[in-house]
């Protein structure tokens, strides 16, 4: 199976979102690789999104940590792991097993997760292991368990293609799961399925949708209660299926009692949606972070499952509730026990039978009696000194956790912090006492599970650099050094997978859904060749859908409908904090950017963090395009560039979550998110902070390009990859007297030849530095936000570029504008120009003329929006 069409091509899985696309990797023999979508993988059938397409640009060893470090000093593995083992052992001995914790990640493979979970729960004897999936889909896990008795995704990706109606709830699928969105678009083209988007923001996913319901934040439960009431009112209840469901009457009564005002939608809008949903048998309701990241996230999930259960629309082709996860192996983490309230293989910690079975299987000395600390509580315990030894693996909680500044302080104050990562250049890794070099995506072997339960192999295509090691190997080594030699005597991922599959057989025997015991006897070569496989894989069931047969996993075998009523987000708006702050993802960035920020192409889409604000709010606050805006509340503050857009509801703001202390220290947006969680799932309410917003008056604004990495020190800065170097946005609150000295320090070019333009009266300074006839850096300073053609300039470092200092191309040379199509680096201006001069009228015509949108297709919705903008503009003229 390793041989695809060429001996050096390797099938693997993309490390980004939960779609779990197959990729075919081709190492270039020089440490890099090229790749393409795997045409045979059932998640993507060859498609890739912009991020996946650019994976080859992210695998360089730049910034990699290649040797273990203790207190910043390189050391050997024995010293580092002996220290880790002894500090954990000593801490447990002195303060008990609950004084230590692991905070792990959806980046871990099933095998890594399995070892971490086994070590913490079975041998250390605490359940203090939680994964960053807590921030991602814990509400879905809780909602699934409440509705189905276990955390089961009932359907498959094929349902998206067989549906007649797709409803996206709190999901910008076009940007966050682009390949699924492309599959839907293709099916829509073929079959005419309808698309409805329920989202406070008018996102790229809304383009071409039949309906966009700009719901008020927190209004989802009310809306789906309204739908449930309408289902009953319009006689659409499937009474036969209700034989398999408990709680219908109470759920309906609660739904009928629900006020619909909190949706913020008009009666007509809602009725149109109700009619469409009720009138379309084959409906898939997709939900994601807009549902999950909420203090009522679990209720939102169940409000959706209620409607599907009431109509019996579950588990059959083309219909059902469908959760899409954020991380590559969020699903695997759920299955293997990465969450503090799960055991392993969908077994429950609270269930004594389950505990006994797992403890017996592991031959473990101990097993915790109940749930451990979920992420928010875990870091609270770290801050309070109750957790004294913490191991953070492949995640960046100092940025990504709510109340991030407090979390950063908590980690900094913890007695002993171990970080496993591929780079030391993260906000979290910089706080580590012990930094362990882990192997990276393209170097790892193992399995991941995607959003439709398909387990795929991840295969190594590049050699492991330096002293880096696989996570399962590091974890098992620590287990052995802590004294559990035989339990952690793993030699390969295949061996771990077999043990895991065998344990799932016990789960299956105990009546759980997750059973892959059919894979427990895979030989090493079978494991090596394992094709994408949807679970379950057992004697009784192979893949397929769940629940059409009415068999659920609650005691008694029935599903449950929940009686729900809408709750507003916890943070209340007041005069001091009049804006609700939504946070989320961008199309071309991933999490805290440790990988995607290495790609110039991906960085070009949105190179600077920003806050989106409605034009009316901006006008009221005197905020103009490109002004800097300060957001503030009790937990933190941020400074972000204004993007004024009517896609935003008045009174609401949106900011991306990706920027960090490494790339934009004032844009650590989770510093503004309070540590408020859903009471059932423990998932933070990441999209409903309340903040003040005000224009920032800086003394100066700057834009910089540089061939070398640069580390600004001013009051506001962000840095992004660009072309052959970097680009940076800067601003300061106090005047700089000597810009030349400042610039030479910033760019570290004391001897470079300098071009300058000064317009002292305007506060304008431009400096360009050249070495050996090539531009090494340029700095553009103004008293207002700098107006230069950034996307043009960003490509100049490293070239001769004697005219860079002009800040723009000559008038006869077009400015391509911000990159819209990452794959072919096609700019907005180029596209608009072609639309106008070549009379292009469709996304396909744009593709034929400019290639834009013809590779991954992630930009197609934005292309369509440009066409729309153009035709509207002309219609209005």
């Amino acid at each position, binding site marked *: 199976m390793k041989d695809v069409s060429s001996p050096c091509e390797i099938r693997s899985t993309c490390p980004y979102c939960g779609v779990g696309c197959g990729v075919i990797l081709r190492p270039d023999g020089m440490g890099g690789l090229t790749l393409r979508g795997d045409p045979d993988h059932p998640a993507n059938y060859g498609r890739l999104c912009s991020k996946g397409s650019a994976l080859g640009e992210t695998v360089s060893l730049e910034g990699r940590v290649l040797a273990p470090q203790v207190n910043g000093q390189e050391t050997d593995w024995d010293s580092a792991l002996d220290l880790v083992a002894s500090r954990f052992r000593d801490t447990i001995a002195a303060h008990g097993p609950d004084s230590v914790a692991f905070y792990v990640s959806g980046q871990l493979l099933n095998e890594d997760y399995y070892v971490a979970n086994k070590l913490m729960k079975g041998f250390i004897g605490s359940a203090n292991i939680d994964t960053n999936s807590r921030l991602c889909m814990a509400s879905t896990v809780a909602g699934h368990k409440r509705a189905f008795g276990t955390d089961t995704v009932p359907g498959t990706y094929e349902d998206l293609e067989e549906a007649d109606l797709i409803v996206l709830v709190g999901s910008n699928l076009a940007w966050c799961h682009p390949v699924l969105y492309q599959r839907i678009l293709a099916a829509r083209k073929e079959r005419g399925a309808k698309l409805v988007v329920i989202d406070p923001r008018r996102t790229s996913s809304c383009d071409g949708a039949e309906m966009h319901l700009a719901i008020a934040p927190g209004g989802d439960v009310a809306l789906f209660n309204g739908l449930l009431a309408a289902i009953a009112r319009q006689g659409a209840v499937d009474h036969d299926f209700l034989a398999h469901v408990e709680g219908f009457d109470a759920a309906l009564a609660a739904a009928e009692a629900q006020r619909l005002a909190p949706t913020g939608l008009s009666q007509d809008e809602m009725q149109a949606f109700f009619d469409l949903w009720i009138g379309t048998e084959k409906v898939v309701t997709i939900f994601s972070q807009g549902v999950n990241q909420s203090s009522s996230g679990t209720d939102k999930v169940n409000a959706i499952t209620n409607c599907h259960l009431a109509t019996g629309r579950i588990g059959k082709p083309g219909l059902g509730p469908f959760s899409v996860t954020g991380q590559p192996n969020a699903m695997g983490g759920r299955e293997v026990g990465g969450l503090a309230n799960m055991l392993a293989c969908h077994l429950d910690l609270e269930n004594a039978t389950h505990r006994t079975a797992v403890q017996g299987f592991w031959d473990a000395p101990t097993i915790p009696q109940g749930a451990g600390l979920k992420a928010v509580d875990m870091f609270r315990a770290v801050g309070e000194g109750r957790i004294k030894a913490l191991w953070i693996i492949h995640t960046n909680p100092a940025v990504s956790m709510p109340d991030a500044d407090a979390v950063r302080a908590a980690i900094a104050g913890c007695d002993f912090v171990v970080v496993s990562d591929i780079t030391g250049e993260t906000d979290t890794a910089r706080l580590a006492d012990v930094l362990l070099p882990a192997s990276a995506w393209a170097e790892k072997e193992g399995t991941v599970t995607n959003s439709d339960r398909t387990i795929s192999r991840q295969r190594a295509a590049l050699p492991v650099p330096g002293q880096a090691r696989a996570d399962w190997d590091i974890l098992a080594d620590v287990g052995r050094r802590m004294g559990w030699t035989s339990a952690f005597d793993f030699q390969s991922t295949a061996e771990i997978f077999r043990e895991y599959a065998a344990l799932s057989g016990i789960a299956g025997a105990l009546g759980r859904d997750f059973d892959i015991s059919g894979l427990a006897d895979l030989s090493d070569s079978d494991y090596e060749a394992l094709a994408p496989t949807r679970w379950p894989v057992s004697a009784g069931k192979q893949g397929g859908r769940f629940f059409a047969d009415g068999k659920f996993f609650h005691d008694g075998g029935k599903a449950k409908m929940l009686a729900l009523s809408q709750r507003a987000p916890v943070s209340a708006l007041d005069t001091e904090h009049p804006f609700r702050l939504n946070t989320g993802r961008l199309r071309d960035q991933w999490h805290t950017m440790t990988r995607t920020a290495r790609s110039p192409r991906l960085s070009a889409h949105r190179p600077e963090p920003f806050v989106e604000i409605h034009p009316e709010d901006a006008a009221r606050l005197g905020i103009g395009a490109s002004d800097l805006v300060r957001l503030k509340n009790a937990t933190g503050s941020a400074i972000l560039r204004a993007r004024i857009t009517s896609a935003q509801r008045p009174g609401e703001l949106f900011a991306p979550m990706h920027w960090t202390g490494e790339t934009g220290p004032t844009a650590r947006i989770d510093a503004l998110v309070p540590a408020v969680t859903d009471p059932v799932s423990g998932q933070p309410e990441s999209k409903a902070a309340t903040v003040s917003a005000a224009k920032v008056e800086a003394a100066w604004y700057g834009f910089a390009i540089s061939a070398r990495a640069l580390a600004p020190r001013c009051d506001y800065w962000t840095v992004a990859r660009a072309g052959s170097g970097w680009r940076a946005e800067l601003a300061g609150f106090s005047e700089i007297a000597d810009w030349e000295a400042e610039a030479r320090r910033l760019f570290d070019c004391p001897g470079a030849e*300098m071009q300058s333009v000064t317009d002292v009266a*305007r506060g304008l300074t431009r400096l360009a530095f050249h070495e050996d006839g090539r531009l090494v850096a340029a700095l553009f300073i103004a008293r207002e936000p700098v107006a230069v053609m950034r996307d043009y300039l960003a490509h100049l470092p490293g070239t001769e570029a004697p005219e860079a200092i002009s800040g723009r191309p*000559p008038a006869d040379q077009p400015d391509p504008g911000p990159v819209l199509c990452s794959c072919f680096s096609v700019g907005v201006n180029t596209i608009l120009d072609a639309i106008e001069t070549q009379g292009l009228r469709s996304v396909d015509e744009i593709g034929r003329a400019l290639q834009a949108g013809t590779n991954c297709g992630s930009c197609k919705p934005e292309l369509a929006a440009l066409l729309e903008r153009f035709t509207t503009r002309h219609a209005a003229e």
Partner: protein
Amino acid sequence: MVGRLVIIGGGMAAGRLLEALADAGSDWKVTLINAEPRGTYNRIMLSPVLAGEKSYPEIVTHDDAWYRARGVACHFGARVTGIDRAAQTVTLASGTAIGYDRLVIATGAMPLIPPMPGADLEGVIAYRDLEDTERMMGLGAGTRAVVIGGGLLGLEAAAGMASRGVSVTVVHRNSHLLDRQLDPAAAGLLQRDLEARGIRVLTSAMTQEIRGEAGQARALVLEDGTELPCDLLVMAAGIRPNIALAEAAGLECARGILVDAQMRSSDPAILAIGECIEFDGQTFGLVAPVFDHALVAADTLLGRRTAYAIKEVSAKLKVTGCDLFSAGDFADLPGRHEIVLNDPLRRRYRRLVIENDRIIGIVLYGDTADGTWFFNMMRDGTEIAPLRDTLIFGPAYQPEQAA
């Protein structure tokens, strides 16, 4: 009435006046008297001739045939000794008296010779005409020349001689070259470029005397004692209007012959144009205003009433590879702002002086292609606020609507 028009001086002002009269088909009967033994040539192209980039015939603008075809009576190589305003005659050194109904004085300017011992030695020349040019062209490689004056003319002379292998030193009183046209930064670039072609430049240098041997200048001595040996010493320390004839004739003069907006002197029968005049307190040394004088004078002679107004002028240095463009006022005064481009990489420098959102001064060095664009904006009083961020880069960097 067919009137008699006499023109004294055959320089570029006179040439332009003759053209304008001819173009208008005027019936003035013209007599042209020129002290040089030739008609009008493009004096400002003497530097390219000196540099060997052009030949004399290429810069002749009016040859004998031209005068013949237009019926101009020419007295070349003839010096005027006096003007009898009462009799309305002009007397030549030969004794010939020529009567006029209208007289135009276009005697141009004289080199300013700083008073110093030895200024009258052989081998001390100015740089005004073809003869001076030929003296410099006659120097062989390996000879030495000193140029006094780091202005446009002096530097062109220096560069021209240097290009012929002459070892040249420029001695300049001010702290930077071209101090009337350039600011110190641009002058520094220029000096660097001149030095790169082997020209020695001494600024803030005060001359003391010219030492000679057997009546021949041999060295310039500076106040600090520096002795600069030379085979030829070129005086290019400036010019002054040549007003001797006018003064002798009792015309009102200050630094130059005072004229009104129609180019009439204090005697309405006598006009004056070119470098010899003074108008509104100003004298003139560049070709553009001189041409304007000629055109206004032509109108006056044709009975049209045109009023002369001083326009912004620009200066260029005709030294190949040292392009500079300078116009307007760039003194550092309150209320003025400047935009400065310092670009050693592209060997260029630009400075715009801005007052009330308008360009009032321009200095370009190294790349002067955009000079006219800036100059037109200055002349037209174009408001530059909308272009300000990219103004200094010239028209190629402006949005289409502005370019």
